Each structure stands twice: as structure tokens, then as C-alpha cells.
């Protein structure tokens, strides 16, 4: 899900950087100093989880889990994803400095949306309802991310339209898989450690 350096046009890069700056500022404002270790440890956990290779037929994909990250961290998802991507850029050169803004927004905006859409309903007493919501959370986060990815390519140039369409379609299996994994994972967390899902909501 990373757009490489040197692909996007200047207006798209600037817009991405500006939107991310606003999101990160919001996230930092809502995160008091005391919360920093907690957010950091969960950021690291999501980073490690994104390294897991999940088999799909003959190939394997990496999970993004931005929907789940949004549910757990709320607005802190913006700085968390920024730090995660900055680390990927600095350690593995995936993504880069100029695309940091766009790439962060592509992943963090759906995370925040999931936080508002599903934050309360995933802990619903009705198990069927909770599962459906959890699946939608995982599915929708990837759908929105791939759409944002496609939009940033299309705004760069008409010639990217085909590539953008294929990118969204290629993410379809990932959407289903993430929906499934998030649903299973949330069922597990609700049983074993429901406090984890109330972290940010309790704080406001």
C-alpha cells in the first residue's frame, strides 16, 4: 500500500502532507504525555503484525490492520501510522519522505472513520451484530484506503486510471481477508480482554 517516491504530482503531495499535518496535530493534542508509552507499544505491535504473511491460495499477503488500529487508538492512529511509515521509510526505504504525508493519510483517514463508525457497535451484546460490524470495519478500512490510493494516482494523471482501477480490484481479496481476520480477532479480544477496546473511548 505504499506509493513510491517520484510518482505523484506536486499538488497531490502537498495536499497529502497538509491533511496529514492536520490529522497528526489532532492526534497529538488528544494524546497526553502519559499515553505516549501505551500508544507506542501498540504502534509497535501493529508494525509487527503487519509483517505476518497470511497465505491466500498460492501467494501470501501482508495485513494492514488500519481498521483495528483505528478502533484501538482513535485519533492517536494518525501519529501512530506516521511513525510506523516513517520507520518503514527510514529502515527499509518503503515509501519515502515526500510521500509520507499522502501514504499516512491513505491509511489513517479510514482508521479514524472506523473509530467513529464502529467504535461502539463492535462491543455490542448481540454477537451476530458485533461480528458483522467487526467484519465491516476490516473490509471498509482497506476499501477506503485503496480508493484513496486510486484517487491520489488519478489526480496525478489521466494515464494512471487503468492502474488505479486494477489496484482497487486487486485489493478485493485483501478486503475480505482483513474483514475476516478483524472479526475473528475482535471476537477473541472481546472474550479475553475487553478493556483493550475501551481504551480510547473511556478517555473521550
Amino acid at each position, binding site marked *: 500500500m505504499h506509493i*513510491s*517516491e*517520484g*510518482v*505523484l504530482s*506536486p499538488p497531490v*503531495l502537498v495536499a497529502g502532507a497538509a491533511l496529514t499535518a492536520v490529522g497528526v496535530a489532532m492526534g*497529538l493534542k488528544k494524546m497526553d*504525555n*502519559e499515553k*505516549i*508509552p*501505551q*500508544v*507506542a*507499544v*501498540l*504502534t*509497535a*505491535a501493529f*508494525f*509487527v*503484525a503487519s*509483517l*505476518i504473511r*497470511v*497465505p*491466500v*491460495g498460492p501467494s501470501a499477503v501482508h495485513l494492514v490492520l488500519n481498521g483495528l488500529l483505528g478502533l484501538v487508538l482513535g485519533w492517536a492512529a494518525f*501519529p*501512530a501510522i*506516521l*511513525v510506523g511509515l516513517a*520507520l518503514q*521509510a*527510514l*529502515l*527499509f*526505504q518503503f515509501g*519515502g*519522505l*515526500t*510521500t509520507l504525508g499522502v501514504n499516512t493519510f491513505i491509511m489513517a483517514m479510514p482508521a479514524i472513520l472506523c473509530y467513529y463508525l464502529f467504535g461502539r457497535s463492535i462491543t455490542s451484546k448481540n454477537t451476530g451484530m458485533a461480528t458483522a460490524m467487526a467484519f465491516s470495519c476490516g473490509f471498509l478500512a482497506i476499501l477506503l484506503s485503496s480508493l484513496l490510493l486510486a484517487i491520489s494516482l488519478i489526480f496525478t494523471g489521466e*494515464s*494512471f*486510471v*487503468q*492502474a488505479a482501477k486494477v*489496484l482497487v480490484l486487486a485489493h478485493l481479496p485483501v478486503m475480505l*481477508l482483513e474483514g*475476516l*481476520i478483524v*472479526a*475473528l*480477532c475482535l471476537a*477473541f*479480544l472481546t472474550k*479475553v*480482554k475487553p478493556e*483493550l477496546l475501551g481504551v480510547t473511548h473511556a478517555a473521550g
Partner: protein
Amino acid sequence: MHIDNFASGDSLLHRLDPRVKIVIALLFSVIVAVADRPLCLATAVCFSLALLLLSSLSLREVFLRLLAVNAFIFFLWLFLPFTYGGEKLFSIGPLTATREGIIYALLITVKSNTIVVALIALLATTPIITLGHALGHLYVPSKLIHLLFFTVRYLQVLHLEYDRLRAAMRIRAFKPGTNLHTYRSLAYLIGMLLIKSFDRADRIRKAMLCRGFHGEFYLLSHFELQRIDVIMLLIMMLVVGGLASLQWIILK
């Protein structure tokens, strides 16, 4: 988990003040990312390669890294030559490749790799924690810097935790495949990882409170510009300024 692969070394670039390297890397990336004039890009490629030589990194490892990073670029090559309007060059079945399309794809490839090589030579040659300190001195918000420090610190701890969980699964004869059992096991693995890190975070918070933490961090690494740092900064600023004028001022 191995981080800081390229950071051990004793070349000129490894020793250079990280603040200088961050500033140059940022300016260089921005200019190359928006540049489109051949002369400007050719100069940028030369500068990037010069940096790579100065960093005396293993060229083989850098090349392997570039291959991995270019996945997205390879993907774009499947489309751009055929979807960019222009003069017809050749056709494969119903698809027509255009000269302009291939030039455009080539342009993107060159820009992307030029930036990545410069980033490897400039930034990957400094340990990530030192970069964090340098960013702190360059007025990046302190909360963000602390988040970065803690994340790097716990990345390795949690990766060990992950390895342990994974080993426990292997001992119980877990073999990943395309089936619900695999997906459920991996989902629980992720859940367990989150729970363990949540509990760990709580212990860390308490331990820090015990030691008088009140939300304030102090940057302990201070940097002082040596003569060589100033000279390198001036040279690289000249190159970057030259690139900018090649792109925007000097007419074709």
C-alpha cells in the same frame, strides 16, 4: 528483527552530522520528486551515485534493497506504456505502447530510485535513535519524537514476543494454509500480541511513574557542527541549489 542494517560503518557520510543529512535528504527528495527536466534529473542521478560511493556501503545489498522497493514501480510499468497517449511504438495484442508512455514510466523509475539511493546513503547510515535526536533538534514536535523512540524500543521487544508465540504454534504443528483454521489462529495470534503489548504498556507506565516521569523527556544527544560538516553542508547545498535552478531557472 534487524534494524539499522546500513548504519554500521565509518565512512564520511556515517560520521556526518545527522541534522545536515536530514536537511539535505529532505530538500533533495522534494526537488527530485517534482523535477521533470532531463538535465536536472541527470545531475541528480550523479549526485545520488556520488553519495552512494561516499557512503562505501555494499553495492550488492543496496541493489537488493532497490529491487524490493521497486515493486510498485514494476506494477506501474504494466500500465503506463499503454495508457499514456502519444506516438505508437509497438503493440502486444490489443495493447499499444507509446513512446511518450515509456518515457514517462522511465522518468518515474529514475526519479524514484534516485531518491531512494540518496535516502539510503544519507539517512540509513545513521542509527534510527540518533536520527530521532536530530529530528528533535530540528523542531519536530517532542511528542512525535518520544512516540518514535518508544516505538523503536518496543518494536524489537514485541518482535521477540511474536517469535515466541509463533514458535509455540509451530511446536503444536501449526501449518499455515488457505483455510479458516489458519485465519482464526493468525487472528488470535494478533489478538494475543495486542494483549501482551497492552499489559506491557501498563507495566512500563507504572515503572516510569515510579521513577518520577512527569511527561518530560530530555534530549541527551547534542550535535556540534564540525568544520567537515559545514563544508559538506555547503557543497551539498550548492548541488541542491544547482538542481533547483536547472529545473526552474535555466531555460532549455
